[in-house]
Structures are given as structure tokens and as C-alpha cells.
């Protein structure tokens, strides 16, 4: 049963990945799928910027622009940033806490396939009559008026992928609570693990409102509901609330793992433990908590009244405090350190000024009275790109470079990595800094063109130039990945040489079972402690023995495929007679697969001690 170090054909590899329940392989799946969607979203961004390069441009039509703009936002948030965050979590968190696997390996795979099929479904819309065109927020009155099936693809696709995310969230919560190695107390958990924990909790509570909102919209568009139809007593503001009760925590769902990644990188490449670890943990939890009480700041201009606006304004400002604590803690982690400017560290260092700009414009947006000017203008576009790109994308790029050797056993080229960094960094600021001023000068967001003579020409042109820098950075990154994959040299367990946490104690890539012996954790930065005491490896907490592993399964794929088919059927429910039946067949496929999962006992298998010893010997020599 063991798949250790065995050469396999292409078909076998594909089958392996289709059925895998191994968190490391699932991480790679998330990375690939998320990466592809990231490229797609980036392409959409380029189209947007080309269209807006000059006034009255007719590169694309107005209607198509709205589709591109909607898909850019939706893809980047749901299909690129979230899965890439999940890729990092899956690759690292179980190893960081000294576990052999996640709590629910089967559900882990299911989560991935749900996300994947949801994403594919959403993008099918391009070929089946038009993509959604009401913005990623899909406000009810416009989305109900949209004539194509685009919004239906949005609703059903996000529903499916959202389910996957929810499952992933629960999985990580249980993993972190139940699967920690002996000695790994909560206050010894690496910051990235903490961030994953809080993020997962946010997912657990933020996704249900989205689910409900999507159900309502599905009912209204496909099954004759009246939730958002004022003529029959419906209320479009309900959608806005539900969307933002989800949408605001979603920002933290993305940015907290980013903070976690940077916390690891700052500590590693400053060769210092994280400054103020406990206040960092507290700040993370506090941000998560406050994240649920501020959603209406996205709705200041809706007309909720001054009382609600004032309350939400002040609550929003409060979030700046724990965020500020984090910024200073990072600065003081570097203070007195021995800073090495590796590629991941470059991103981390560049993140601080970039994110601070995004953060302070966030506070500016929180001042409700002034937000009446910023709202839905390019100022807001600039603000959230500073947060999402300057925070999350920087972190994902940093994390990818940082953990690439751990995931694939080879280091990405540092020279190319730095080229990518500089292109991306310059392009990013070039694109978005000027947009603050475009917004203040009166340019609304989501416009497919602008007229000459309103003062928007220069700013938009600069912005477009910047976008091409980022595109160039992406090309270099892809080249780097290809070159590394083909020519890269295998590396050992701790290729950066300064690894502090447990993932750097196991070979790169980690063996299927992660740890031959579960380690005993003796403090924060467990691996660093061992290294400082001159030890080569970790202190084991158990004798070497057979290791129990879960069986691979094809069922997650089938369950997700069933929902995909069902969604397609229900989408055409009102157009064709077969719609309903295809929908029912799809649901039956899903329920059938779930039934099989339920009745077939799956006790997993064991890797024998001898096999492990052999594998460990090889791993040590690599």
C-alpha cells in the first residue's frame, strides 16, 4: 500500500492525486488550481486596465467589461486567494503542530474538490451565454435584473465552493485542537498555526450567512422567490447585509493567514523569536472577534441612518489598534536581529509600508461622514488592493517562495525570485497608489470608461503601466517555477538554515507520514530550541512503530462532481424540461457517494516500521 519512493506512470500519478487524502498532496492541488485561477484573474485585471488606459477606449464593450470586472473580483477572492491560503495551511499546519495528518483527511479532499468544481462551474459561464455581470458583491436589484445565466453561475458556483471552504475550516479547527504533538500547548503554537485557527473559526461563522444569501438569490432567480423583489414585499438590503456579514470577515479570513506567514518569515530571517508573541496571539483573536461587528461600514451610503453609521464607524476604527500592535511587533522582531534579505524576507519587509498604507486608508474609510465621498470611488479600489495585494498576495508570494522547498523539495531560484519581487513591488505601487487620487478627484469605481476632460487621463495611464509590471513579474515567477522543476537541486530538511518551527525538521518534501516518531515539543519554536542545544533532530515522544494512515478515496471527487451536475441541471430548470432531471440525477450521485462513504468501513492501513526506517535513511541522505 505504501507509495513511498516508487516511480509511477503519468496515469498512476493522476489517479493518485484524484484520490489522495494526504494533506501535502492536497496542498499541491490547491496550489495548482488556485494558481491557475490566479492567472485567470490576473488576465482579467489586465483587460480591465487596458480598457481604462485611455478615455473613451473601445478595447472591450461595456457589457463585457462588467463581466470581466465581476469575474476578476470573484475569481481573485474565492478561487485564487482563498485556495492559495488553503494551500499554505495544508502544506504547513499539520507539520507545524507535529501531526501526521489532519483530523479529517477524507473531508480535506472533499473540501478541495468542492472548491475546484465550484470554480470550474463559475468559469463555465464564459462559454454558456455570459459571465455574471453585477460585480463580485452582486447587489440584489442589479443581479435580479441581469438577463443572462451569469448570476446563476455565480450563485451556484459559489455555493459549491463555499461548502468546500466551510469543510476546510472545520477540519483545521479540529486538527489544531486535537492533533497537536505532546508539549505543543496553545501558547507554543507557531503564529501561522494560530492564524489558521482563528481564520478557520471565522470561516465557520462567516460562510453560513453567504450560504443563506446565495440560497435566497437562487430562490429568487430560479424558483420564484421574492426575497429581493420590492414589488412583493422583498428587500434588497437583506442581500447587502448578508453579503457583508460574510464579506467583511472574509477580508480577515484572507489577511490573518497572511499575517501568520509574515510572522514566520520575520522571525526566521531575523533569526529572532517573534517579538511579543502572546500579544500577537491576542491581537489575532481580537481582530477575528471585531471582524464580525463592522460589516455595515461597507454600507454607509445605503441610508441606515446616523446612529448605525456612527456605531459601525467607531467599531471599525477599533480594529486599527490590534493591527497596529502587530505592525510594531514585526518591526521589533527585526530590531536587534540579523536580517537576511532572501526573497520571502523581501516581500515581508515590503509588506510593512504597503500594508500600513492600506491600513490607514481603511481608517480613513471608517470615518463615516468622509466615507460618503470615498465610497464606491477609486479611493476604495486603491484601499482594498493595498490590503489584499499588499497584504495577502505579497504573503502568498512570500509563502510560496518560503515553503516551496518544503512542498517540492527544491528551492526556487533566488535571483529570479528577487526579479519577480521588484517587478511586482514597483508595479503594485504604480498601479494602485495613484488610484487613491483618482477616487478623490471624482472617479467612481466599476466604470467601463471615462470621458476626456475630467482629469482622469494621467492617473489611469500610470495605473495601466503598473499593471504590466505585475504581469511581467508573474511571467518571471512562472519561468522560475519551470526552471526550478526541471533543473533545481534537491534540498535537505532545513534549506534556509534558519528554520524555527517543526516543518523544517522533516525532510523536504515531508514523507507521507510526516514524522517517523511524533516529536516532543519543549517550547515555542520547537526546532530552533533543539538546534540551539546542538541536536540534529527532534526529541521523539514515542517509540518507532507502525504508522496508521488513511486510505485514498475517489468518493470526494464523485460527491463534488454530483453537485456540479446538479447545479448545471437546476440552472437550466426553467429553460429546458431536462433541467430538473439532470439536477436530481446530480443530487443522487452526490447522495449515493455519501451513502457509500457511510456504509463502507474505512479503517486505513499501516506503514510498517521497517519501511519507515528505510524511508528515513533515504530522506536523511537526500
Amino acid at each position, binding site marked *: 500500500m505504501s507509495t513511498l519512493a516508487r516511480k509511477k506512470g503519468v496515469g498512476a500519478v493522476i489517479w493518485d492525486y484524484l484520490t489522495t487524502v494526504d494533506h501535502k498532496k492536497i496542498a499541491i492541488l490547491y496550489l495548482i488550481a488556485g494558481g491557475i485561477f490566479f492567472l485567470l484573474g490576473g488576465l482579467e485585471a489586465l483587460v480591465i486596465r487596458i480598457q481604462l488606459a485611455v478615455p473613451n477606449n473601445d478595447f472591450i464593450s461595456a457589457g463585457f467589461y462588467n463581466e470581466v470586472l465581476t469575474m476578476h473580483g470573484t475569481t481573485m477572492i474565492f478561487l485564487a486567494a482563498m485556495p492559495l491560503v488553503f494551500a499554505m495551511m495544508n502544506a504547513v499546519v499539520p507539520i507545524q503542530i507535529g501531526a501526521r495528518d489532519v483530523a479529517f483527511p477524507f473531508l480535506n479532499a472533499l473540501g478541495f474538490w468542492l472548491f475546484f468544481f465550484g470554480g470550474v462551474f463559475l468559469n463555465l459561464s464564459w462559454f454558456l451565454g455570459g459571465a455574471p455581470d453585477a460585480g463580485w458583491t452582486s447587489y440584489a436589484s442589479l443581479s435580479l435584473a441581469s438577463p443572462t445565466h451569469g448570476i446563476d453561475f455565480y450563485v451556484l458556483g459559489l455555493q459549491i465552493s463555499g461548502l468546500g471552504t466551510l469543510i476546510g475550516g472545520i477540519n483545521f479547527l479540529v486538527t489544531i485542537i486535537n492533533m497537536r504533538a505532546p508539549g505543543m500547548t496553545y501558547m507554543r503554537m507557531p503564529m501561522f498555526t494560530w492564524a489558521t485557527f482563528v481564520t478557520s*473559526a471565522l470561516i465557520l461563522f462567516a460562510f453560513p450567512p453567504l450560504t443563506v444569501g446565495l440560497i435566497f438569490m437562487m430562490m429568487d432567480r430560479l424558483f420564484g422567490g421574492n426575497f429581493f423583489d420590492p414589488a412583493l414585499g422583498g*428587500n434588497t438590503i*437583506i442581500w447587502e*447585509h448578508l453579503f457583508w456579514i460574510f464579506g467583511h470577515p472574509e477580508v480577515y479570513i484572507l489577511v490573518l493567514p497572511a499575517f501568520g506567514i509574515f510572522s514566520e518569515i520575520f522571525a526566521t530571517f531575523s533569526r529572532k523569536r517573534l517579538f511579543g508573541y502572546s500579544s500577537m496571539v491576542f491581537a489575532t483573536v481580537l481582530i477575528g472577534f471585531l471582524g*464580525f461587528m463592522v460589516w455595515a461600514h461597507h454600507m454607509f451610503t445605503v441610508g441606515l*441612518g446616523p446612529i448605525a453609521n456612527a456605531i459601525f464607524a467607531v467599531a471599525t476604527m477599533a480594529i486599527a489598534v490590534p493591527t497596529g500592535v502587530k505592525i510594531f511587533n514585526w518591526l521589533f522582531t527585526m530590531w536587534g536581529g540579523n536580517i537576511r534579505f532572501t526573497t520571502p524576507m523581501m516581500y515581508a519587509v515590503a509588506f510593512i509600508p504597503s500594508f500600513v498604507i492600506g491600513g490607514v486608508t481603511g481608517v480613513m474609510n471608517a470615518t463615516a461622514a468622509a466615507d460618503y465621498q470615498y465610497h464606491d470611488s477609486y479611493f476604495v479600489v486603491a484601499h482594498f488592493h493595498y490590503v489584499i495585494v499588499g497584504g495577502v498576495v505579497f504573503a502568498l508570494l512570500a509563502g510560496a517562495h518560503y515553503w516551496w522547498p518544503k512542498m517540492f523539495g527544491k528551492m526556487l531560484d533566488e535571483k529570479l525570485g528577487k526579479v519577480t519581487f521588484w517587478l511586482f513591488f514597483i508595479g503594485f505601487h504604480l498601479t494602485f497608489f495613484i488610484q487613491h487620487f483618482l477616487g478623490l478627484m471624482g472617479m467612481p469605481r466599476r466604470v467601463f470608461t471615462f470621458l476626456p476632460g475630467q482629469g482622469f487621463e494621467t492617473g489611469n495611464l500610470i495605473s495601466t503601466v503598473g499593471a504590466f509590471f505585475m504581469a511581467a513579474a508573474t511571467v518571471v515567477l512562472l519561468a522560475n517555477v519551470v526552471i526550478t522543476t526541471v533543473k533545481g537541486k534537491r534540498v535537505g530538511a532545513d534549506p534556509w538554515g534558519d528554520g524555527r518551527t517543526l516543518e523544517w525538521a522533516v525532510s523536504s518534501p515531508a514523507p507521507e507520514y510526516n514524522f517517523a516518531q511524533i516529536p516532543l515539543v519543549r517550547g515555542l519554536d520547537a526546532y530552533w530550541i533543539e538546534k540551539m542545544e546542538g541536536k540534529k533532530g527532534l526529541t521523539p515522544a514515542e517509540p518507532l512503530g507502525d504508522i496508521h494512515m488513511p486510505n485514498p478515496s475517489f468518493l470526494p471527487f464523485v460527491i463534488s462532481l454530483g453537485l456540479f451536475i446538479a447545479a448545471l441541471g437546476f440552472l437550466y430548470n426553467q429553460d429546458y424540461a431536462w433541467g430538473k432531471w439532470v439536477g436530481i440525477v446530480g443530487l443522487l450521485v452526490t447522495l449515493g457517494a455519501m451513502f457509500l462513504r457511510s456504509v463502507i468501513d474505512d479503517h486505513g492501513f499501516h506503514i510498517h516500521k521497517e519501511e519507515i526506517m528505510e524511508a528515513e535513511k533515504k530522506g536523511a541522505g537526500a
Partner: protein
Amino acid sequence: MANHTNSGNPNVDLAYRRKKNAEEMKFQVISFILMIFLTIVAFFAVGYEGFSHWFSVPFILLLATVQVAFQLYYFMHMSHKGHEFPALFLYSGVFVAFLTVLAFVTIVWV
């Protein structure tokens, strides 16, 4: 073989456990009876013409909350040890739920 008991003699322990289980069952039956009672009171409170809805609405909501507490703590064993995390996450859910409902009954106008 792991020993799940504290005392050495499994039979003694078994008897003790059975007794404890039976005792717990008694509590559960009592809470069931209370729940039925609360339900009936709630239905009557609504059926009775004498109460204004300013009284009856908060009153029946209170009854529902009490009833749910019985469900959670007795039927779903939240009163037992090892339910710290379930409680933490359930109450976090309740917190978000409360905010949502509060917002929807105050700032969503029709």
C-alpha cells in the same frame, strides 16, 4: 489494553457507571417534563387574550431560551466535562447569530 476505569475492579466500576447513567437519565426525564410544560405555557400565553404582545413576545422568547438551555445542557450533555470547545464555538455562533438578528430587526427597513 487500556483500562478505562479508575478502580481496579471492572464490575464495581460498571455498577457505578450504570448508576450514574441512570441518575443522569432521571435528570433528562425531568428536563423533558419541564420542556413540555414550558411549551404548553408558551402556547397558552399566546392563546390568552389578556396579555398584550409587549408582554407575551418577550415572555415566550424567554421560555424558548430556557427550553433550549435544557436541550443543550442535559440532552446534548454540554454540562459534562470536555465540552469547553463545543461551548466556546456554540456561543461564538450565538454571538454572531445575535448580531445578525439584532441588525435585521433594527436597521433593515421595509
